[in-house]
């Protein structure tokens, strides 16, 4: 370990940057109504929103893993025309305003959407205003985080292990399952954690696509937004819960898996 003494022209802006990111969070702590906090947290609406948030974020992460890992593999390992375009498309939800994502989802999966109208006619399935819709909205916004992490891990992985397995007679799928996946496991976990945290905080696409109904589609971020209308203190309490959960997960898992 070399610990170089950093030049102060770097340290000062770095500290300013840190303060800029951390101060608003400290503001939440300072303004929190600590005395009434336990009572507010025990309210059924809060617990309901928290439970829904945790469940949908987890399901969204599962969906992202199932679809995103193969997608990342394709981007990292397969040679095909237009790969750069595909990679750009995959990352679009990162920069797209989430509300736009929600509208786009409605236009495709809505009751009159390109795909949604057939889902409705053939199977009687309607995704907007359901918990499944929440999962979809969260997955749409969070999947790029997973794909980017896993793709990075795949690119960094040593190809020789996979080649050795192939020459020893393993099928492509076996190589992927028994060699590649274990090799990139830390990258997959890191991506899944980021993906989960992003899904947990998702707001714009959710409220646009899935709407807001307590117990069914009202996740924590939506509850925060509506609490702000009538009871700002309640909004602070809800925000603190989200913050605590996110920080706990990011801190514990990042330390262990990335580095």
């Amino acid at each position, binding site marked *: 370990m070399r610990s170089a003494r950093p030049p102060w*022209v*770097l340290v*000062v*802006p770095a500290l300013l940057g840190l303060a800029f990111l951390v101060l608003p969070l400290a503001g939440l702590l300072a303004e929190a109504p600590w005395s009434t906090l336990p009572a507010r947290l025990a309210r059924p609406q809060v617990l309901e929103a928290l439970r829904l948030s945790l469940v949908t974020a987890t399901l969204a992460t599962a969906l992202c893993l199932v679809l995103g890992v193969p997608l990342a593999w394709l981007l990292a390992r397969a040679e095909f025309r237009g790969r750069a375009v595909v990679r750009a498309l995959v990352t679009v939800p990162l920069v797209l305003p989430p509300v736009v994502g929600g509208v786009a989802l*409605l*236009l495709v999966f*809505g*009751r*009159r959407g390109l795909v949604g109208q057939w889902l409705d006619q053939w199977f009687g399935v309607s995704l*907007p*205003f359901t918990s499944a819709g929440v999962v979809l909205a969260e997955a749409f916004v969070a999947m790029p985080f997973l794909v980017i992490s896993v793709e990075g891990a795949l690119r960094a992985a040593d190809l020789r292990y996979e080649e050795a397995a192939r020459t020893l007679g393993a099928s492509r799928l076996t190589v992927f399952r028994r060699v590649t996946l274990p090799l990139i496991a830390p990258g997959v976990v890191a991506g899944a954690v980021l993906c989960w945290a992003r899904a947990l905080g998702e707001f714009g696409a959710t*409220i*646009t696509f*899935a*709407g*807001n*109904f*307590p117990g069914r*589609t*009202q996740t924590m971020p*939506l509850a925060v*937004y*509506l*609490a*702000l*209308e*009538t009871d*700002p203190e309640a909004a602070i309490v809800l925000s603190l819960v989200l913050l605590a959960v996110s920080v706990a997960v990011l801190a514990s898992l990042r330390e262990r898996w990335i580095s």
Partner: protein
Amino acid sequence: MRGLVAIAVLLTVLTGCGSGGAEKKELTVFAAASLTETFTALGARFEAARPGVKVTFNFGSSATLAQQIGKGAPADVFAAASPATMKQVSDKARVFARNRLEIAVPKGNPARVAGLADLARPEVTVALCAPQVPCGAAAAKVLQGLKVTPVTLEQDVKATLTKVTLGEVDAALVYRTDVRAAAGKVEGVEFAESARAVNDYPIVALTGGLADDFVSLVLSEQGRGVLTAAGFEGAAG
């Protein structure tokens, strides 16, 4: 050394903006989302009559706007969709318009909604405003005694209307003015019970000068003309 200059520039930019208020040529109006069309039109007239004056708007949910003002947002005029919300900001407000609810349905009215009672039919999907915002409070008042189960409780009236525009719900309770503004994309169904929950819109000038002038314009015959054309009712007093 160059880093020092960069920091100095950054600090100047960050702190400098607030200190240069020589002559006030800008008017900032915070107004309820349902006033978007009418106030934009009135703002254009105001600017046309006073060269060099720039009117900027912050449209949003009345409650959110009231909180922003409470936390020090620089508003010159505040127009809210509910007197209760206005009370958080000022007691000196004057009612300038009234709005009532109407049922918005997608073009062609696929669920054949003819009145309020139809919203209680189980196969009709309904979007309402959340009870925390004024249009939701009004909806709750007119729906008293009816068992309506909405699929979503939206955060503001425009979001509620969007669900109808996109055809995702069969009906929504929004203001008459919103239906009027979205004419061509949605149809409106009036209902007698809407008289039970008429929304008063109060307005107040939070600073003097231009702010007073703008409020006068809204209260004037000209202002009333713009508002009634959009579907608002004039205030009684």
